[in-house]
């Protein structure tokens, strides 16, 4: 397991370069990290939230130690707390720093693929500096193999850069939705600043200045900065192009444009006032417009502030306080096990890259002018198609064109088609659940799963989505290319990728 297949040290950069663009996946494999310096690539190589490729192999966790917030955002409601809901700002159980450290060690022992610990709320980590940094200090001492990161609105960021640097927190995410106070006034009703609640554009201006200052200070010290932006149609959609330009020029290494989540039942301003979120195409178009030569992140799952596991899964319920208390953790032993498992994963990733580099890809997958197709796949992790259609609550959508394959983003559905491991839904439920899946995949021409049942099979075909189980256990991008070939051969009914249902 320790043997590296290629017999070389772990140099993602050298291999990615050797692979170059021959895989036809520039911008998606290794997340188009090629323009970044080696030192940065080294840091993001195993980070599931930053590297699209890594997120198939490594897991993350958030600990909810930071309940207080110093601003209000129109997409957030501080009253909400529900175990069944998944979105940022939502948690089930607030932890003390001690409890959080214990939970981290427990998860690290049980899920060795967990490489990253983040503090992301449910409020703002830097509005709770003592609790956040106490948590980091404990983990830094007890579990030095875990990477630390935090996510902030930026208001208090300039005050804490020293401590962030001292604790070797090398990844910071700042949520920047605007650089213009007038736009900001439509997103942030107030900020708490110097002992006053400051409303409107005046408050937004302070927030914007502090975000930009914090960003500059972090970059000066060589700390990686990712910028998150919430895409709010009609409020900041056009404006985000300028945000992207500015944060890129200042040195942020990744810009993550996320869709607004707004439902009346969340009780947020946007939800209640009927502000709509972007549709799939609007999100994808804006991500394209912001991309330029900068990395855009498309695999973000907008996790809860207490999520645990691979992106797209949440195993938080396995690690509630009472369950952790009952666990007996030998962290030294766990660290050894973790190191072994990580070496195994790296050997596997190296081998995959080597295989890709060897397989000479044709310059074009199809004649120029062949229309692009979107293809959905289901996976449990590992970068292969290994999830049954009926068990999936998440579909990863890829777009394939003659020039190559690129990742478009995840599509979540509330319910998997199957009710239990071997139970299919019955009666009305069956239709509703499947309708939601068909709607989520309406722009796709095929769906590739480890297996697809007979009933969904025919409904998928009716919706002009070709189901296939032929690519079970295949590498995702290989399978997507293969399916594109099949579609072309069949002369598939091309879908207009610009016409989208809202969803």
């Amino acid at each position, binding site marked *: 397991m320790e043997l590296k297949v290629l017999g070389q040290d772990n140099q993602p950069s050298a291999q990615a370069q050797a692979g170059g663009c021959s895989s036809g996946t520039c911008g998606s494999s290794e997340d188009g990290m090629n323009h970044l310096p080696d030192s940065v690539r080294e840091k993001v190589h195993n980070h599931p939230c930053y590297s699209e490729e890594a997120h198939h192999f490594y897991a993350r966790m958030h600990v909810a130690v930071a*309940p*207080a*917030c*110093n601003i*209000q955002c*129109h997409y957030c*409601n*501080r*009253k909400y*707390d529900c175990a069944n809901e998944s979105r940022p700002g939502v948690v089930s159980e*607030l932890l003390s720093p001690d409890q959080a450290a214990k939970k981290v060690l427990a998860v690290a022992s049980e899920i060795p693929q967990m490489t990253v610990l983040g503090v992301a709320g449910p*409020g703002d980590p830097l*509005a*709770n500096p003592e609790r956040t940094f106490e948590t980091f200090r404990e983990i830094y001492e007890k579990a030095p193999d875990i990477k630390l990161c935090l996510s902030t609105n930026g208001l208090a960021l300039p005050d804490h850069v020293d401590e962030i640097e001292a604790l070797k927190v090398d990844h910071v995410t700042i949520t920047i939705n605007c650089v213009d106070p007038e736009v900001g006034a439509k997103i942030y*009703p*107030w900020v*708490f600043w110097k*002992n*006053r*609640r400051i409303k409107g554009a005046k408050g937004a201006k302070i927030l914007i200045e502090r975000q930009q200052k914090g960003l500059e200070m972090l970059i000066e010290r060589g700390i990686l900065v990712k910028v998150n932006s919430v895409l709010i149609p009609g409020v900041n959609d056009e404006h985000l192009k300028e945000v992207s330009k500015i944060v890129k020029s200042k040195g942020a290494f990744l810009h993550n444009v996320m869709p607004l989540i707004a439902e*009346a*039942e969340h*009780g*947020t*301003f946007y*939800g*209640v*006032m009927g502000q709509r979120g972007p549709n799939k195409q609007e999100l994808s178009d804006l991500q394209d417009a912001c991309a330029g030569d900068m990395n855009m992140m498309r695999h973000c799952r907008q996790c809860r502030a207490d999520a645990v596991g691979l992106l797209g899964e949440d195993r938080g319920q396995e690690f509630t306080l009472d369950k952790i208390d009952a666990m007996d953790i030998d962290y030294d032993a766990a660290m050894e096990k973790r190191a072994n498992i990580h070496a195994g994963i790296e050997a596997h990733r190296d081998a995959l890259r080597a295989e890709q580099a060897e397989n000479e890809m044709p310059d074009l997958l199809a004649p120029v002018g062949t229309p692009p197709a979107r293809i959905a796949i289901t996976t449990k992790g590992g970068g292969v198609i290994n999830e049954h259609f009926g068990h999936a609550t998440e579909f990863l959508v890829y777009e394939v064109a003659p020039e190559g394959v690129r990742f478009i983003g995840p599509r979540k559905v509330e319910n998997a088609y199957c009710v239990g491991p071997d139970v299919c839904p019955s009666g009305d439920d069956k239709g509703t659940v499947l309708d939601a899946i068909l709607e989520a995949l309406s722009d796709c021409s095929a769906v590739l799963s480890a297996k697809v049942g007979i009933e969904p099979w025919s409904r998928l075909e009716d919706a002009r989505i070709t189901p296939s189980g032929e690519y079970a256990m295949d590498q995702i991008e290989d399978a997507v290319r293969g399916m594109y070939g099949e579609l072309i051969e069949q002369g598939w009914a091309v879908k207009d990728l610009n016409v989208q249902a809202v969803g």
Partner: protein
Amino acid sequence: MSLSIVESCVNCFACEPLCPSEAIFKGEEIFLIDAKKCTECDGDFADPQCASICPIEGAILDAAGEAINPPGSLTGIPPLRMAQAMAEIQAR
């Protein structure tokens, strides 16, 4: 002369460290204000600190029992609109 916190408090801890009189403490269910210690920030700050950071409308009352942050004042959602939306959700 004291402010008070009512049961809509969500236990976010934001107010507690800001109180210049150390009058705020975590009670069994929610945070509470020790009436003997509370000065309403008189002499320390222009605005009472707890009520200036509290994100929940109606959670902090003044000495007369009136909400310092009445409905709509923090979220910007007009109370009528909120009532309408909630009625629609319940009717589903």
